[in-house]
Protein backbone atom coordinates (compact mmCIF):
# COMPACT_ATOMS: atom_id res chain seq x y z
CA UNK A 1 0.00 0.00 0.00
CA UNK A 2 2.99 2.31 0.18
CA UNK A 3 3.34 2.73 -3.58
CA UNK A 4 1.37 5.97 -3.60
CA UNK A 5 3.59 7.83 -1.20
CA UNK A 6 6.75 6.40 -2.75
CA UNK A 7 5.91 8.10 -6.05
CA UNK A 8 7.04 11.53 -4.87
CA UNK A 9 9.80 13.01 -6.97
CA UNK A 10 9.70 16.60 -5.80
CA UNK A 11 7.72 19.01 -3.72
CA UNK A 12 4.65 20.84 -4.94
CA UNK A 13 6.59 24.11 -4.68
CA UNK A 14 8.81 23.44 -7.69
CA UNK A 15 6.35 24.94 -10.19
CA UNK A 16 5.70 28.66 -9.93
CA UNK A 17 2.24 28.67 -11.51
CA UNK A 18 -0.63 28.78 -9.04
CA UNK A 19 -2.51 25.89 -10.62
CA UNK A 20 -4.58 23.44 -8.65
CA UNK A 21 -2.38 20.56 -9.81
CA UNK A 22 0.67 22.22 -8.27
CA UNK A 23 -0.96 22.14 -4.84
CA UNK A 24 -1.73 18.41 -4.88
CA UNK A 25 0.25 16.54 -2.21
CA UNK A 26 0.76 12.80 -2.38
CA UNK A 27 0.29 12.29 1.36
CA UNK A 28 -3.17 13.85 1.12
CA UNK A 29 -4.03 11.79 -1.95
CA UNK A 30 -2.99 8.70 -0.02
CA UNK A 31 -5.22 9.36 2.97
CA UNK A 32 -8.33 10.47 1.03
CA UNK A 33 -8.05 11.26 -2.69
CA UNK A 34 -11.76 11.81 -3.33
CA UNK A 35 -12.15 15.48 -2.25
CA UNK A 36 -9.07 16.33 -4.33
CA UNK A 37 -10.41 14.39 -7.31
CA UNK A 38 -13.71 16.27 -7.07
CA UNK A 39 -11.90 19.62 -7.27
CA UNK A 40 -9.74 18.39 -10.15
CA UNK A 41 -12.81 17.24 -12.12
CA UNK A 42 -14.45 20.61 -11.54
CA UNK A 43 -11.53 22.98 -12.04
CA UNK A 44 -8.62 21.21 -13.73
CA UNK A 45 -9.73 17.91 -15.24
CA UNK A 46 -6.36 17.35 -16.91
CA UNK A 47 -3.86 18.75 -14.43
CA UNK A 48 -0.08 18.87 -14.36
CA UNK A 49 0.78 17.54 -10.90
CA UNK A 50 4.46 18.09 -10.06
CA UNK A 51 4.28 15.90 -6.96
CA UNK A 52 3.36 12.92 -9.17
CA UNK A 53 5.48 14.12 -12.10
CA UNK A 54 2.48 13.45 -14.35
CA UNK A 55 -0.62 14.91 -15.89
CA UNK A 56 -3.52 13.47 -13.94
CA UNK A 57 -6.72 12.80 -15.92
CA UNK A 58 -9.73 13.01 -13.62
CA UNK A 59 -12.96 12.92 -15.67
CA UNK A 60 -14.77 9.80 -16.80
CA UNK A 61 -15.22 11.02 -20.38
CA UNK A 62 -11.53 11.89 -20.80
CA UNK A 63 -10.45 8.55 -19.30
CA UNK A 64 -12.73 6.70 -21.71
CA UNK A 65 -11.48 8.75 -24.69
CA UNK A 66 -7.87 8.04 -23.75
CA UNK A 67 -8.48 4.32 -23.31
CA UNK A 68 -9.87 4.25 -26.85
CA UNK A 69 -6.70 5.78 -28.32
CA UNK A 70 -3.81 3.48 -27.40
CA UNK A 71 -1.69 4.77 -30.32
CA UNK A 72 -1.50 8.18 -28.65
CA UNK A 73 -1.53 7.00 -25.05
CA UNK A 74 1.16 4.33 -25.02
CA UNK A 75 1.65 1.77 -22.27
CA UNK A 76 5.38 1.55 -23.10
CA UNK A 77 6.49 4.10 -20.54
CA UNK A 78 10.16 5.15 -20.71
CA UNK A 79 12.42 4.46 -17.70
CA UNK A 80 9.72 2.19 -16.36
CA UNK A 81 10.60 0.95 -12.88
CA UNK A 82 8.27 -1.96 -13.50
CA UNK A 83 10.54 -3.19 -16.30
CA UNK A 84 13.53 -2.88 -13.99
CA UNK A 85 11.79 -5.00 -11.35
CA UNK A 86 9.91 -7.58 -13.40
CA UNK A 87 11.44 -7.56 -16.85
CA UNK A 88 9.48 -6.44 -19.91
CA UNK A 89 5.91 -7.55 -19.27
CA UNK A 90 2.85 -7.29 -21.50
CA UNK A 91 1.46 -4.40 -19.48
CA UNK A 92 4.29 -2.15 -20.73
CA UNK A 93 4.04 -3.15 -24.40
CA UNK A 94 1.89 -1.87 -27.26
CA UNK A 95 0.47 -3.21 -30.50
CA UNK A 96 1.38 -6.64 -31.87
CA UNK A 97 4.09 -7.39 -29.27
CA UNK A 98 1.53 -6.89 -26.53
CA UNK A 99 -1.25 -8.81 -28.31
CA UNK A 100 0.96 -11.86 -28.77
CA UNK A 101 1.82 -12.23 -25.07
CA UNK A 102 -1.70 -11.46 -23.98
CA UNK A 103 -3.17 -14.05 -26.33
CA UNK A 104 -0.89 -16.71 -24.85
CA UNK A 105 -1.92 -15.92 -21.27
CA UNK A 106 -5.64 -15.36 -21.83
CA UNK A 107 -7.31 -18.79 -22.24
CA UNK A 108 -7.23 -19.82 -18.53
CA UNK A 109 -8.81 -16.50 -17.57
CA UNK A 110 -11.79 -16.62 -19.92
CA UNK A 111 -15.20 -16.93 -18.26
CA UNK A 112 -16.00 -20.53 -19.17
CA UNK A 113 -12.81 -21.99 -17.64
CA UNK A 114 -13.39 -19.76 -14.66
CA UNK A 115 -16.93 -21.07 -14.21
CA UNK A 116 -16.20 -24.73 -14.98
CA UNK A 117 -12.81 -25.16 -13.39
CA UNK A 118 -11.50 -22.43 -11.10
CA UNK A 119 -14.68 -21.61 -9.21
CA UNK A 120 -14.77 -25.06 -7.55
CA UNK A 121 -11.17 -24.66 -6.44
CA UNK A 122 -11.85 -21.14 -5.14
CA UNK A 123 -14.72 -22.58 -3.10
CA UNK A 124 -12.34 -25.09 -1.53
CA UNK A 125 -9.90 -22.30 -0.63
CA UNK A 126 -12.70 -20.31 0.98
CA UNK A 127 -14.05 -23.25 2.95
CA UNK A 128 -10.63 -24.26 4.26
CA UNK A 129 -9.90 -20.75 5.45
CA UNK A 130 -13.30 -20.43 7.13
CA UNK A 131 -12.82 -23.86 8.77
CA UNK A 132 -9.56 -22.60 10.24
CA UNK A 133 -11.07 -19.40 11.63
CA UNK A 134 -14.54 -20.48 12.61
CA UNK A 135 -14.07 -21.33 16.30
CA UNK A 136 -12.25 -18.08 17.06
CA UNK A 137 -15.40 -16.01 16.57
CA UNK A 138 -13.33 -13.04 15.47
CA UNK A 139 -10.77 -12.19 12.82
CA UNK A 140 -9.28 -9.45 10.75
CA UNK A 141 -10.92 -10.31 7.44
CA UNK A 142 -8.25 -8.55 5.39
CA UNK A 143 -5.26 -10.25 7.02
CA UNK A 144 -6.79 -13.60 7.99
CA UNK A 145 -9.02 -14.23 5.00
CA UNK A 146 -8.83 -11.89 1.99
CA UNK A 147 -5.01 -11.90 1.70
CA UNK A 148 -4.38 -15.67 1.98
CA UNK A 149 -7.50 -16.40 -0.08
CA UNK A 150 -6.42 -14.22 -3.03
CA UNK A 151 -2.85 -15.54 -2.77
CA UNK A 152 -3.80 -19.22 -2.71
CA UNK A 153 -6.18 -18.76 -5.66
CA UNK A 154 -3.56 -16.90 -7.66
CA UNK A 155 -1.02 -19.68 -7.07
CA UNK A 156 -3.52 -22.21 -8.42
CA UNK A 157 -4.40 -20.14 -11.49
CA UNK A 158 -0.77 -19.45 -12.35
CA UNK A 159 0.29 -23.07 -12.01
CA UNK A 160 2.30 -22.61 -8.81
CA UNK A 161 0.11 -24.64 -6.45
CA UNK A 162 2.99 -25.32 -4.05
CA UNK A 163 3.83 -21.66 -3.50
CA UNK A 164 2.87 -20.70 0.05
CA UNK A 165 0.25 -17.92 0.23
CA UNK A 166 2.53 -15.95 2.55
CA UNK A 167 5.35 -16.13 -0.02
CA UNK A 168 3.07 -15.02 -2.85
CA UNK A 169 1.92 -12.07 -0.77
CA UNK A 170 5.51 -11.11 0.04
CA UNK A 171 6.57 -11.39 -3.63
CA UNK A 172 3.63 -9.32 -4.78
CA UNK A 173 4.13 -6.55 -2.23
CA UNK A 174 7.92 -6.48 -2.65
CA UNK A 175 7.70 -6.11 -6.43
CA UNK A 176 4.87 -3.58 -6.38
CA UNK A 177 6.67 -1.43 -3.79
CA UNK A 178 9.71 -1.44 -6.06
CA UNK A 179 7.69 -0.33 -9.11
CA UNK A 180 7.02 2.86 -7.12
CA UNK A 181 10.58 3.22 -5.78
CA UNK A 182 11.28 6.60 -7.39
CA UNK A 183 13.30 7.62 -4.33
CA UNK A 184 15.79 4.80 -5.10
CA UNK A 185 15.70 3.22 -1.66
CA UNK A 186 18.26 0.37 -1.80
CA UNK A 187 16.41 -1.84 0.70
CA UNK A 188 13.33 -1.73 -1.52
CA UNK A 189 15.44 -2.87 -4.50
CA UNK A 190 17.03 -5.67 -2.51
CA UNK A 191 13.71 -6.96 -1.26
CA UNK A 192 12.27 -6.98 -4.77
CA UNK A 193 15.34 -8.70 -6.22
CA UNK A 194 14.99 -11.47 -3.69
CA UNK A 195 11.31 -11.78 -4.53
CA UNK A 196 11.95 -11.84 -8.29
CA UNK A 197 14.59 -14.54 -7.83
CA UNK A 198 12.21 -16.66 -5.77
CA UNK A 199 9.50 -16.29 -8.43
CA UNK A 200 11.97 -17.42 -11.11
CA UNK A 201 12.93 -20.42 -8.96
CA UNK A 202 9.29 -21.35 -8.39
CA UNK A 203 8.66 -21.19 -12.16
CA UNK A 204 11.75 -23.30 -12.89
CA UNK A 205 10.38 -25.96 -10.55
CA UNK A 206 7.17 -26.41 -12.57
CA UNK A 207 8.28 -25.84 -16.18
CA UNK A 208 9.43 -29.38 -16.91
CA UNK A 209 6.26 -30.92 -15.56
CA UNK A 210 3.94 -28.48 -17.35
CA UNK A 211 5.83 -28.97 -20.63
CA UNK A 212 5.03 -32.66 -20.48
CA UNK A 213 1.58 -32.41 -18.92
CA UNK A 214 -0.41 -29.35 -19.96
CA UNK A 215 -3.14 -28.28 -17.52
CA UNK A 216 -5.56 -25.37 -17.04
CA UNK A 217 -2.95 -23.01 -15.57
CA UNK A 218 -1.58 -19.76 -16.99
CA UNK A 219 2.01 -20.98 -17.15
CA UNK A 220 0.85 -24.06 -19.04
CA UNK A 221 -1.12 -21.86 -21.46
CA UNK A 222 1.95 -19.69 -22.09
CA UNK A 223 4.08 -22.75 -22.79
CA UNK A 224 1.59 -24.44 -25.10
CA UNK A 225 0.15 -21.41 -26.92
CA UNK A 226 0.01 -21.44 -30.73
CA UNK A 227 2.82 -18.91 -30.48
CA UNK A 228 4.50 -20.02 -27.24
CA UNK A 229 6.27 -17.59 -24.90
CA UNK A 230 9.95 -17.92 -24.08
CA UNK A 231 11.04 -18.68 -20.52
CA UNK A 232 12.10 -15.05 -20.14
CA UNK A 233 8.67 -13.84 -21.29
CA UNK A 234 6.96 -16.28 -18.96
CA UNK A 235 9.04 -15.05 -16.03
CA UNK A 236 8.17 -11.41 -16.68
CA UNK A 237 4.47 -12.01 -17.24
CA UNK A 238 4.08 -14.29 -14.23
CA UNK A 239 5.60 -11.46 -12.17
CA UNK A 240 3.16 -8.88 -13.48
CA UNK A 241 0.28 -11.23 -12.72
CA UNK A 242 1.61 -11.79 -9.19
CA UNK A 243 1.95 -8.03 -8.82
CA UNK A 244 -1.46 -7.18 -10.26
CA UNK A 245 -3.60 -10.22 -9.51
CA UNK A 246 -3.37 -10.49 -5.75
CA UNK A 247 -3.97 -7.20 -3.95
CA UNK A 248 -6.88 -6.22 -6.20
CA UNK A 249 -9.12 -9.20 -5.47
CA UNK A 250 -8.00 -8.99 -1.82
CA UNK A 251 -8.91 -5.31 -1.58
CA UNK A 252 -12.22 -5.56 -3.42
CA UNK A 253 -13.16 -8.52 -1.22
CA UNK A 254 -12.41 -6.58 1.97
CA UNK A 255 -13.85 -3.23 0.87
CA UNK A 256 -17.07 -4.83 -0.36
CA UNK A 257 -17.46 -6.88 2.82
CA UNK A 258 -16.98 -3.69 4.83
CA UNK A 259 -19.53 -1.85 2.67
CA UNK A 260 -22.12 -4.59 3.20
CA UNK A 261 -21.44 -4.77 6.94
CA UNK A 262 -22.02 -1.03 7.22
CA UNK A 263 -25.08 -0.87 4.91
CA UNK A 264 -27.53 -3.29 6.54
CA UNK A 265 -30.32 -2.80 3.98
CA UNK A 266 -28.06 -3.64 1.08
CA UNK A 267 -26.66 -6.59 2.97
CA UNK A 268 -30.19 -7.88 3.56
CA UNK A 269 -30.93 -7.42 -0.14
CA UNK A 270 -27.97 -9.53 -1.33
CA UNK A 271 -28.58 -12.18 1.31
CA UNK A 272 -32.15 -12.48 0.04
CA UNK A 273 -31.29 -12.41 -3.68
CA UNK A 274 -27.97 -14.01 -4.67
CA UNK A 275 -28.16 -12.50 -8.16
CA UNK A 276 -27.22 -9.21 -6.48
CA UNK A 277 -23.72 -10.36 -5.46
CA UNK A 278 -22.39 -9.47 -8.88
CA UNK A 279 -23.94 -5.98 -8.61
CA UNK A 280 -22.31 -5.59 -5.22
CA UNK A 281 -18.99 -6.42 -6.85
CA UNK A 282 -19.34 -3.89 -9.67
CA UNK A 283 -20.37 -1.23 -7.18
CA UNK A 284 -17.46 -2.05 -4.85
CA UNK A 285 -14.82 -1.64 -7.56
CA UNK A 286 -16.51 1.56 -8.72
CA UNK A 287 -16.79 3.00 -5.22
CA UNK A 288 -13.22 2.24 -4.05
CA UNK A 289 -11.32 1.19 -7.17
CA UNK A 290 -8.50 -1.20 -6.17
CA UNK A 291 -6.33 0.31 -8.90
CA UNK A 292 -6.95 4.04 -8.65
CA UNK A 293 -4.34 5.17 -11.15
CA UNK A 294 -2.35 3.57 -13.96
CA UNK A 295 0.35 5.17 -16.13
CA UNK A 296 0.53 6.05 -19.82
CA UNK A 297 2.84 8.15 -21.97
CA UNK A 298 1.91 10.30 -24.99
CA UNK A 299 3.42 9.46 -28.37
CA UNK A 300 2.44 12.86 -29.89
CA UNK A 301 1.13 16.23 -28.87
CA UNK A 302 -2.54 15.91 -28.05
CA UNK A 303 -5.43 17.92 -26.60
CA UNK A 304 -7.35 16.06 -23.91
CA UNK A 305 -10.22 17.57 -21.96
CA UNK A 306 -9.24 21.02 -23.27
CA UNK A 307 -5.62 20.77 -22.10
CA UNK A 308 -2.70 20.61 -24.50
CA UNK A 309 -0.28 17.82 -23.57
CA UNK A 310 3.16 17.62 -25.17
CA UNK A 311 4.57 14.50 -26.83
CA UNK A 312 6.40 12.18 -24.45
CA UNK A 313 4.46 13.38 -21.39
CA UNK A 314 3.71 11.05 -18.52
CA UNK A 315 0.03 10.57 -17.75
CA UNK A 316 -1.70 9.23 -14.66
CA UNK A 317 -5.10 7.81 -15.59
CA UNK A 318 -7.27 8.38 -12.51
CA UNK A 319 -9.84 5.63 -12.80
CA UNK A 320 -10.51 6.12 -9.08
CA UNK A 321 -11.73 9.62 -9.95
CA UNK A 322 -13.54 8.68 -13.17
CA UNK A 323 -15.54 6.19 -11.10
CA UNK A 324 -16.72 9.04 -8.83
CA UNK A 325 -17.59 11.40 -11.68
CA UNK A 326 -20.87 13.11 -10.77
CA UNK A 327 -21.77 13.61 -14.44
CA UNK A 328 -21.95 9.82 -14.84
CA UNK A 329 -22.84 8.49 -11.38
CA UNK A 330 -25.58 10.13 -9.29
CA UNK A 331 -24.47 10.69 -5.68
CA UNK A 332 -21.09 9.14 -6.56
CA UNK A 333 -19.66 8.90 -3.04
CA UNK A 334 -22.52 6.67 -1.92
CA UNK A 335 -22.21 2.87 -2.02
CA UNK A 336 -25.35 1.72 -3.85
CA UNK A 337 -25.38 -1.73 -5.36
CA UNK A 338 -28.69 -1.00 -7.08
CA UNK A 339 -27.04 1.62 -9.30
CA UNK A 340 -28.13 1.09 -12.92
CA UNK A 341 -26.36 1.41 -15.26
CA UNK A 342 -22.98 1.25 -13.54
CA UNK A 343 -20.51 2.08 -16.30
CA UNK A 344 -17.36 2.06 -14.17
CA UNK A 345 -13.84 1.80 -15.57
CA UNK A 346 -12.26 -0.10 -12.67
CA UNK A 347 -10.79 -2.74 -15.01
CA UNK A 348 -9.26 -0.20 -17.35
CA UNK A 349 -10.05 -0.24 -21.05
CA UNK A 350 -8.67 -0.90 -24.49
CA UNK A 351 -5.96 -3.45 -25.28
CA UNK A 352 -4.84 -3.71 -21.63
CA UNK A 353 -8.35 -4.28 -20.25
CA UNK A 354 -7.85 -6.44 -17.15
CA UNK A 355 -7.15 -10.05 -18.03
CA UNK A 356 -8.29 -11.18 -14.58
CA UNK A 357 -11.72 -9.54 -14.47
CA UNK A 358 -13.66 -12.83 -14.67
CA UNK A 359 -11.39 -14.50 -12.14
CA UNK A 360 -11.89 -11.59 -9.78
CA UNK A 361 -15.68 -11.58 -10.17
CA UNK A 362 -15.80 -15.30 -9.47
CA UNK A 363 -13.44 -15.33 -6.49
CA UNK A 364 -14.93 -12.35 -4.76
CA UNK A 365 -18.61 -12.19 -5.62
CA UNK A 366 -19.53 -15.79 -6.51
CA UNK A 367 -17.46 -17.50 -3.83
CA UNK A 368 -15.91 -15.42 -1.02
CA UNK A 369 -18.77 -13.12 -0.02
CA UNK A 370 -21.58 -15.68 -0.20
CA UNK A 371 -19.42 -18.13 1.80
CA UNK A 372 -18.47 -15.64 4.50
CA UNK A 373 -21.98 -14.27 4.97
CA UNK A 374 -23.53 -17.75 4.97
CA UNK A 375 -21.01 -19.59 7.12
CA UNK A 376 -20.18 -17.00 9.79
CA UNK A 377 -23.39 -16.57 11.82
CA UNK A 378 -24.10 -13.04 12.96
CA UNK A 379 -21.10 -11.65 11.07
CA UNK A 380 -20.59 -8.03 12.11
CA UNK A 381 -17.95 -5.35 12.34
CA UNK A 382 -16.03 -5.43 15.64
CA UNK A 383 -16.39 -2.18 17.62
CA UNK A 384 -12.63 -1.63 17.44
CA UNK A 385 -10.11 -1.00 16.10
CA UNK A 386 -11.61 1.45 13.64
CA UNK A 387 -11.48 0.46 9.96
CA UNK A 388 -8.93 2.58 8.07
CA UNK A 389 -8.46 3.12 4.35
CA UNK A 390 -5.37 4.18 2.47
CA UNK A 391 -3.85 4.65 -0.97
CA UNK A 392 -4.59 6.30 -4.29
CA UNK A 393 -2.51 4.36 -6.87
CA UNK A 394 -3.86 1.31 -5.07
CA UNK A 395 -6.59 1.76 -2.49
CA UNK A 396 -8.35 -0.41 0.02
CA UNK A 397 -9.09 -0.94 3.69
CA UNK A 398 -5.98 -1.47 5.84
CA UNK A 399 -7.78 -3.68 8.37
CA UNK A 400 -11.22 -5.25 8.80
CA UNK A 401 -11.92 -6.48 12.33
CA UNK A 402 -15.06 -8.62 12.50
CA UNK A 403 -16.88 -10.97 14.91
CA UNK A 404 -19.42 -13.72 14.63
CA UNK A 405 -21.07 -16.26 16.92
CA UNK A 406 -19.66 -19.78 16.37
Amino acid at each position, binding site marked *: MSTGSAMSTGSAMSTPSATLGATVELARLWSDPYPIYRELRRREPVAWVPAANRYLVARHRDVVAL*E*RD*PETFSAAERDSLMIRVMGHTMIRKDGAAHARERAAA*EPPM*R*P*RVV*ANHWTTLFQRTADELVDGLYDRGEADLLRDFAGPYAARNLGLVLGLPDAAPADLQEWSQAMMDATGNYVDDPTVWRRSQTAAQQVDDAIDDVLGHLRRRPDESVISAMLHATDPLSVEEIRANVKVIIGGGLNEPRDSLAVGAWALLTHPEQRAAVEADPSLWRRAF*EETVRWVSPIGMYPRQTTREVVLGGTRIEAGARIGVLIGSANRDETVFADPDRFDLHR*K*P*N*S*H*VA*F*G*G*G*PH*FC*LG*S*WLARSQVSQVAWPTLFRRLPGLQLAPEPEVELGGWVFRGVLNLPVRWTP
Partner: protein
Amino acid sequence: MPKIIYVDPDGTRHVVDAPDGTSLMQAAVANGVEGVLGECGGSAMCATCHVYVDPADGGRLPELGADEDEMLDSTASPRTTASRLSCQLTASEDLDGLVVRLPEEQI
Protein backbone atom coordinates in the same frame (compact mmCIF):
# COMPACT_ATOMS: atom_id res chain seq x y z
CA MET B 1 -21.66 3.41 -46.59
CA PRO B 2 -23.84 0.94 -44.64
CA LYS B 3 -26.19 2.49 -42.10
CA ILE B 4 -26.76 0.77 -38.77
CA ILE B 5 -29.67 1.74 -36.54
CA TYR B 6 -28.97 1.45 -32.80
CA VAL B 7 -32.05 1.60 -30.59
CA ASP B 8 -31.81 2.54 -26.90
CA PRO B 9 -34.03 0.70 -24.39
CA ASP B 10 -36.27 3.82 -24.27
CA GLY B 11 -36.77 3.68 -28.05
CA THR B 12 -34.35 6.46 -29.04
CA ARG B 13 -32.83 5.66 -32.44
CA HIS B 14 -29.28 6.46 -33.52
CA VAL B 15 -28.65 6.10 -37.25
CA VAL B 16 -24.93 5.64 -37.77
CA ASP B 17 -22.77 5.44 -40.90
CA ALA B 18 -20.56 2.43 -40.29
CA PRO B 19 -17.60 2.30 -42.69
CA ASP B 20 -17.07 -1.08 -44.34
CA GLY B 21 -14.81 -3.26 -42.24
CA THR B 22 -15.31 -1.53 -38.88
CA SER B 23 -17.04 -3.46 -36.14
CA LEU B 24 -20.51 -2.50 -34.99
CA MET B 25 -18.95 -1.83 -31.56
CA GLN B 26 -16.44 0.63 -33.06
CA ALA B 27 -19.11 2.35 -35.14
CA ALA B 28 -21.32 2.81 -32.06
CA VAL B 29 -18.52 4.11 -29.88
CA ALA B 30 -17.17 6.47 -32.57
CA ASN B 31 -20.63 7.99 -32.93
CA GLY B 32 -21.34 8.52 -29.24
CA VAL B 33 -23.87 5.70 -28.86
CA GLU B 34 -23.49 5.38 -25.10
CA GLY B 35 -25.31 2.08 -24.72
CA VAL B 36 -22.26 0.27 -26.11
CA LEU B 37 -19.09 0.45 -23.97
CA GLY B 38 -16.64 -1.89 -25.70
CA GLU B 39 -14.20 -1.82 -22.81
CA CYS B 40 -11.76 -4.43 -24.06
CA GLY B 41 -11.44 -2.71 -27.40
CA GLY B 42 -12.98 -5.58 -29.34
CA SER B 43 -11.07 -8.65 -28.16
CA ALA B 44 -14.17 -10.54 -26.98
CA MET B 45 -13.08 -10.39 -23.35
CA CYS B 46 -15.34 -7.87 -21.58
CA ALA B 47 -18.96 -8.51 -22.70
CA THR B 48 -19.71 -4.75 -22.60
CA CYS B 49 -20.67 -4.51 -26.28
CA HIS B 50 -23.74 -6.73 -25.94
CA VAL B 51 -26.59 -6.01 -28.41
CA TYR B 52 -29.80 -7.66 -29.57
CA VAL B 53 -30.42 -8.24 -33.26
CA ASP B 54 -34.01 -9.07 -34.17
CA PRO B 55 -34.23 -12.73 -35.21
CA ALA B 56 -35.72 -11.69 -38.56
CA ASP B 57 -32.49 -9.78 -39.24
CA GLY B 58 -30.26 -12.40 -37.65
CA GLY B 59 -30.00 -14.35 -40.90
CA ARG B 60 -27.79 -11.59 -42.28
CA LEU B 61 -25.19 -12.15 -39.59
CA PRO B 62 -22.34 -14.63 -39.39
CA GLU B 63 -22.76 -17.52 -36.95
CA LEU B 64 -21.82 -17.09 -33.32
CA GLY B 65 -18.11 -17.59 -32.73
CA ALA B 66 -16.92 -19.74 -29.80
CA ASP B 67 -15.45 -16.80 -27.86
CA GLU B 68 -18.56 -14.75 -28.56
CA ASP B 69 -20.87 -17.53 -27.38
CA GLU B 70 -18.85 -17.95 -24.19
CA MET B 71 -18.79 -14.24 -23.45
CA LEU B 72 -22.54 -13.88 -24.00
CA ASP B 73 -23.05 -16.16 -20.97
CA SER B 74 -21.53 -13.39 -18.84
CA THR B 75 -23.46 -10.32 -19.98
CA ALA B 76 -24.95 -7.92 -17.43
CA SER B 77 -28.35 -7.79 -19.17
CA PRO B 78 -30.07 -11.09 -19.92
CA ARG B 79 -28.87 -13.19 -22.84
CA THR B 80 -31.56 -14.05 -25.38
CA THR B 81 -31.53 -15.82 -28.74
CA ALA B 82 -31.09 -12.33 -30.26
CA SER B 83 -27.90 -11.61 -28.27
CA ARG B 84 -24.66 -10.81 -30.10
CA LEU B 85 -21.36 -9.08 -29.30
CA SER B 86 -21.18 -6.01 -31.51
CA CYS B 87 -17.37 -6.16 -31.56
CA GLN B 88 -17.62 -9.46 -33.43
CA LEU B 89 -19.90 -8.08 -36.18
CA THR B 90 -18.29 -6.30 -39.12
CA ALA B 91 -20.10 -3.62 -41.10
CA SER B 92 -20.67 -4.31 -44.80
CA GLU B 93 -23.29 -3.47 -47.46
CA ASP B 94 -25.04 -6.71 -46.49
CA LEU B 95 -25.83 -5.18 -43.10
CA ASP B 96 -27.16 -1.85 -44.44
CA GLY B 97 -30.22 -0.85 -42.42
CA LEU B 98 -29.63 -3.43 -39.67
CA VAL B 99 -31.52 -2.67 -36.47
CA VAL B 100 -29.54 -3.31 -33.32
CA ARG B 101 -31.25 -3.02 -29.92
CA LEU B 102 -29.20 -1.99 -26.91
CA PRO B 103 -29.52 -3.63 -23.49
CA GLU B 104 -30.30 -1.73 -20.32
CA GLU B 105 -26.80 -2.17 -18.92
CA GLN B 106 -23.43 -3.49 -20.00
CA ILE B 107 -21.71 -3.94 -16.61
